[in-house]
């Protein structure tokens, strides 16, 4: 049961809500994080600004009192400071003359510095040296070489290194990304798309940069099939509910606008609560599930969330049966209320009072309400008054679960069972129940249904009117018609949690 609500008006599922909530909570609790302790680091040595002689290096080494790993430490410092490559070279000369010699680790770090600064000639030299010395490399070295070579004439080497990597491990999306970028840069679009397909087959999510490089590809490559494949990328985004970040969104926008013979025009836009794009006034896709999807979700939900592997984990079979019969014997409900969650909305007054007030205001419009609670609520106490509970049972149907059963799954099931018009009221984000679902596809279905059906009462003061947050009636998902595209994207500087959706849209229109 989530009690950490706060008075704000941001819809719970829109980007940045969790961040704002945590800020409010921090302010409330007046907790200030200790300013980061800045311990003077032991053995901190300044990086020389120019190359040093071996003698000078050995003097520095003595001063640092680091017997082992001095060279490695210095090289790491140089990488983080992005210092001049000549200094690193002079360190290598010193290391080569030393007893210990140049280790693989040191070479690797030097390579990282070269790749970072894009020193192509040096990367090639290091490659030749390492190739002579070692039969194979580790994954880190391969990744660096792939990145280092991908935009040079030796880009074919990076492709073959990707093949070598594949023999032992699955290459990372970044590895694939660099190879794709290399192929695109050298106008081998067939190879690029083959690698892209292979990456998706391995269940890897492509990086934003990779997609950017595809959209930015040379105009010569942008023939009909290439364009269709890019549309395929957008479809992949839609299917997996991936939202582009702002830079990629800009690339997509300019790509559309540059398509010859089709005059596309893009605008940044937002969408009204009623689901109309502010830029083109077109209505967006509805949030409601298709009847088939709805049935699947209902079945899967009962099977994996409530029953699970073991019905005793969350409830008992008797209770589940009793509940199913109860739900079946009544006509469908309009609103299902999480009694305990609602009663915790305010700390003022008895809990039963809060619950009764909220439920009365909901049912006043002739709505059929079901309240879920636990049996302990029926015991007379300071916070649960008997006459409030009696009144509550007159105004709404109630079902009281065992004290050790979980109430949320029952809430969701009752709401799913009542049909597509039924909504539920709780502040709980239901992330734990979402995670019980068997696969990503059903989790996405659940999230969509949740956004369309969860009523949220962000704050409540006794005696005041009940203000529910408006439910979005449109789905935040990439969508298209023959003459338009609507693409939600993540604005820079907005921290979006995984259970939130962006608020900003790119609206693309084709003139005809």
């Amino acid at each position, binding site marked *: 049961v989530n009690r950490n609500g706060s008075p704000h008006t941001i819809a719970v599922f829109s980007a940045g809500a969790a961040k704002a909530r945590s800020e409010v909570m921090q302010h409330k609790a007046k907790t200030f994080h200790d300013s980061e302790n800045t311990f003077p680091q032991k053995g901190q040595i300044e990086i*020389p600004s*120019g190359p040093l002689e071996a003698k000078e290096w050995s003097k520095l080494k003595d001063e640092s009192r680091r017997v082992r790993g001095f060279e490695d430490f210095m090289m790491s410092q140089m990488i983080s400071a992005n210092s001049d490559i*000549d200094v690193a070279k002079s360190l290598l000369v010193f290391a080569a003359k030393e007893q210990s010699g140049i280790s693989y680790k040191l070479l690797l770090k030097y390579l990282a510095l070269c790749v970072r600064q894009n020193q192509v000639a040096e990367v090639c030299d290091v490659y030749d040296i390492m190739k002579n010395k070692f039969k194979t490399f580790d994954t*880190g070295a391969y990744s660096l070489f792939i990145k280092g070579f991908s935009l040079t004439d030796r880009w074919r080497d990076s492709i073959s290194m990707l093949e070598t990597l594949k*023999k*032992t491990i699955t290459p990372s999306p970044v590895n694939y990304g660099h190879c794709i970028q290399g192929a695109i840069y050298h106008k081998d679009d067939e190879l690029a798309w083959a690698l892209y397909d292979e990456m998706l087959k391995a269940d890897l999510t492509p990086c934003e940069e990779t997609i950017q490089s595809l959209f930015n590809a040379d105009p010569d490559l942008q023939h009909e099939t290439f364009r269709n494949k890019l549309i395929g990328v957008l479809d992949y985004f839609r299917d997996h509910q991936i939202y582009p970040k702002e830079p990629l969104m800009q690339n997509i926008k300019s790509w559309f606008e540059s398509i010859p013979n089709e005059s596309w025009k893009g605008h940044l836009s937002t969408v009204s609560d009623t689901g109309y794009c502010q830029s083109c006034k077109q209505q967006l896709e509805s949030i409601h599930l298709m009847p088939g999807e709805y049935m699947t979700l209902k079945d899967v939900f009962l099977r994996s969330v409530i029953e699970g592997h073991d019905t005793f*984990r969350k409830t008992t079979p008797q209770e589940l049966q009793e509940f199913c019969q109860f739900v079946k014997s009544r006509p469908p409900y309009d609103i299902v209320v999480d009694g305990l969650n609602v009663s915790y909305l305010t700390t003022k007054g008895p809990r039963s009072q809060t619950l009764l007030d909220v439920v009365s205001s909901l049912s006043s419009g002739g709505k059929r309400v079901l309240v879920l609670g636990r049996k302990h609520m029926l015991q007379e106490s300071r916070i649960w008054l008997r006459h409030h509970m009696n009144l509550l049972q007159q105004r709404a149907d109630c079902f009281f679960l065992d004290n050790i059963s979980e109430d949320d799954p029952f809430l969701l099931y009752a709401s799913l069972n009542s049909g597509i018009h039924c909504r539920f009221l709780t502040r709980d984000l239901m992330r734990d129940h979402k995670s019980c679902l068997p696969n990503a596809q059903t989790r996405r279905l659940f999230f969509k249904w949740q956004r369309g059906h969860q009523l949220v009462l962000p704050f409540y003061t006794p005696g005041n009117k009940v203000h529910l947050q408006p439910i979005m009636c449109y789905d935040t998902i990439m969508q298209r018609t023959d003459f338009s595209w609507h693409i939600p994207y993540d604005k820079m500087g907005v921290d979006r949690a995984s259970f939130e959706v962006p608020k900003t849209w790119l609206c693309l229109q084709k003139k005809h």
Partner: protein
Amino acid sequence: DVKSEPNETLDLEEWKSILKSGIESYETKKTETQEDPSLNGMRELVEMWRLAGRAVPQSITTEQLQVLMELPTKTARKKYLKYLSVREIIKTNQKEKKKELKESSKSKMENLDQFETKEGNPEKKNTFLLHVWDKSIDTVQRWKCAQAMKFGLPLVFDMVYEKYMSRYELENTVCQLMESEGWNRRNADPFHIYFCNLQSGGPYHKELVKRYMGAWDNIFITATDKPHVEMFPKEQLVYLTADSPNELIHFDPTKIYIIGSLVDKCQQTGLSLANAKRLNLATARLPLDRYLKWDVGAKNLTLDQMIRILLCLKDTGDWKKALSFVPTRKHDGFVERAASK
């Protein structure tokens, strides 16, 4: 001494020629070629990871490589390699310590020999006690355990959780079971330990036989494949689980307590509570919050901590003493109210 201008005499490419000249000295050691190529590739990769300074073991066996290959993800592989490297380090450290100890005792003996030859035969000390050897302690403990088998309070370990655990978790559980048995044996008034639902030939049984080696058939516990509900009257049983809604107020010698043999590293909340619910047994949890200012960590304790707490409770009935076996990192001391009692 930090120079701002590059030295004219400094040859920045010198390291390359040095490296190129010393090729032979760097060649990595040749590996056996009998292995199939994919294993060999993996072995080489592990070797290169070691050179790159990652946490991997110095040497790796073919079986370990096969386990490594079968792991599904990169993270799982990294974790396994780290585990192997840590284990290797511990082993080498132990070896070194043993060697040192051997040497020091050797030199001591030599000193003693010298001393004896100097002084001649020293007179034997007069004592009315024979040296108490470990063997006699063992005998006493076994005698007490045998008595407990006859007259002791039963304590049940429920062994039904085999299928919920990974290999590591199962190994950890068996370690904890052995330690619990050890603590019980050393107590003045041991429990009569029951391992209920223990499937012979199952993973638990296999691991226990392996770890106890020959001693498995000689330890004073009752291991049975029967469930606890068949061996004891149902109303006497109390299932101890951290998820229980009921607090254990005091240790009741007329009850039989059940501890679930489960190491739960992936938060399978409510697993043992579900079991107790299914069998319709009474449940209880330790009153940790009543007596301790809980700080971090889960409320589920290890099996050996549980048995030490129960042993202490049985002997003294003092919660404060009993809960001193809860790891101190998990709490901030005792609640004052309880301390004043």
